[in-house]
């Protein structure tokens, strides 16, 4: 909607209302930025300075804090683990998800609707509530305290929404392309890999964000399945770090900054992509 019709209005009450709304939104912007700003500034102060002068700048920025948290407290490892777990999970979410979507949307067969619904049943129901059988299952598979445990769970969690979004998209790819490729001698696998997948690239981009952000941020499953400090992902590492250094606010803020800033920077670089990806499941 790009009509500005109503804003040329000179009615006094209306302008006042508009001003109020603008002010409200401005205040909200401040409410978003200031806590983040303060977090970064606080991470450069000593704990004493944080308490004595919560709004001021540090006279002597403690850049060393970042070094301490990143290297000595092992955040580089948490970060690497998160990167590894998220990447591996996403590769398989996209591979298996797109394959299943292709199978369900490009062939007509009797079970297809039933299988589709089976995949979708994972969307609405929270897997967290099934943590007990999942715990026993992972234990029996011998996967406790191994990255594979959470990777498998993340793949499973990502598949339903991936199938939902991708199969909807793949249905719109014209059949004629497929026939043409078949005449040129393509088999089903190369139709999937060379025709349908490249055409689905925009939808795959959305699905990537839609799943990668929650997987990167997930706390619950690594909390349950990962105990060794060297295997912890960023959110769980951050949590145990908070348990250990609860009085050293200076380091706590540095840890938070390290956990939050990379995501913020990534977002600022490609915000539209993130916005479309994250809302992909809720917007038709």
């Amino acid at each position, binding site marked *: 909607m790009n009509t500005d019709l109503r804003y040329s209005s000179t009615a006094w009450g209306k302008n006042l209302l508009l001003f109020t709304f603008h002010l409200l939104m401005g205040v909200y912007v401040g409410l978003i930025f200031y806590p983040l700003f303060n977090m970064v500034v606080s991470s450069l102060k000593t704990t004493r300075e944080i308490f004595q002068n919560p709004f001021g700048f540090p006279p002597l920025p403690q850049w060393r804090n970042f070094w301490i948290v990143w290297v000595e407290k092992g955040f580089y490892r948490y970060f690497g683990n998160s990167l590894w777990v998220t990447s591996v999970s996403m590769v398989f979410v996209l591979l298996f998800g797109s394959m299943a979507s292709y199978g369900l949307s490009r062939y007509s067969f009797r079970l297809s609707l039933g299988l589709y619904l089976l995949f979708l049943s994972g969307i609405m129901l929270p897997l967290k509530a099934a943590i007990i059988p999942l715990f026993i299952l992972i234990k029996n598979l011998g996967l406790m305290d191994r990255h594979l445990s959470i990777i498998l769970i993340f793949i499973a969690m990502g598949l339903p929404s991936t199938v939902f979004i991708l199969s909807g998209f793949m249905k719109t790819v014209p059949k004629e392309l497929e026939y043409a490729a078949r005449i040129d001698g393509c088999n089903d696998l190369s139709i999937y890999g060379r025709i349908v997948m490249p055409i689905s690239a925009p939808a795959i981009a959305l699905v990537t964000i839609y799943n990668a952000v929650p997987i990167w941020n997930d706390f619950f499953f690594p909390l*349950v399945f990962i105990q060794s400090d060297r295997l912890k992902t960023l959110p769980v590492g951050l949590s145990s770090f908070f348990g250990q250094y609860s009085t050293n606010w200076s380091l706590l803020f540095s840890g938070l900054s390290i956990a939050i800033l990379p995501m913020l920077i990534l977002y600022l670089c490609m915000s539209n992509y993130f916005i479309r990806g994250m809302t992909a499941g809720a917007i038709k």
Partner: protein
Amino acid sequence: MLLSKELRKGFWITFFVLPGLVIVAVFILLPLFLSLFNSLFSWNQLIRGEWVGLENFRRVFFTSPYRERFFNALRNNGKWFLVTMLVQNTLGLLFGYLLSRRIPGHGFFRRTFFIPVLFSIVAVGFLWGLYLKPNGLLNAFLKLVGMESWTRAWLGEESIATFSIIGVNIWRWVGFPTLVFLAAINAIPLDCLEAAYLDGARETQVFGRIVLPLIVPALTVITVLTLIGSLNVFEQIYTMTGLDGSPNYSTDTIGTLFYRTAFGSVDSGNPEIGIGSAIGVVIYLLTFFASAGFIALSRGREVEL
């Protein structure tokens, strides 16, 4: 030849669907089914005992101390849902509408509101946990602007701790409904609105009679997501007031209660798999029926153009 063609089709379907299906079946459907199964047995640690029927559910609903804990937690989840609907989603609707009207700076606002949505709940929870401490930033700010009488232990007083945590969650999440509503409003054909303006409809009429009925699907999606989110609150409590929902269980939710019964914590002692499974099943049923209810309710109110 015909048979082999059918066979080949069957092979390809299996090839494409099977890997995903196996993973979903083993790690989502099986645990789902098993938690229902487990809730019907008595348990000794991780060893399954005898069949007890609905006994675990009876204990959750009718016997101390489970009953008090359960309904206390459920009440808090109810607060989460109501306050989030009332504050966050109303704010989201207002922001979304204003952004759709292209008020000055709308691109900037749109981008900014979405920032905290990307952050992990854990990081946001810990960050605000520090700010809301008695010696934290919020109280320091209140002192700075001369509202010293307003300072308090935001996470330490039973009457306000839950609302403080909900407030933090709203801070993180308000951009989401905002952008979903914005997209829904932007999808309304322009001629609809122009016709209304030409007929001399006032802003409130345009909003109430045209925009609102046309974005019912978005309202439903947001309501259902809020509901699912409210029933699954866990990280927020874990990071800000702890697994026990302190002070005095006032911030306890089904999620934290479930975790404590499933894995045991300092005060509740050993894990109780039977009771835990029963609570898990209750979470499933609540999520399923409440979502289905809202979807059915909104079906009747959707307007097709």
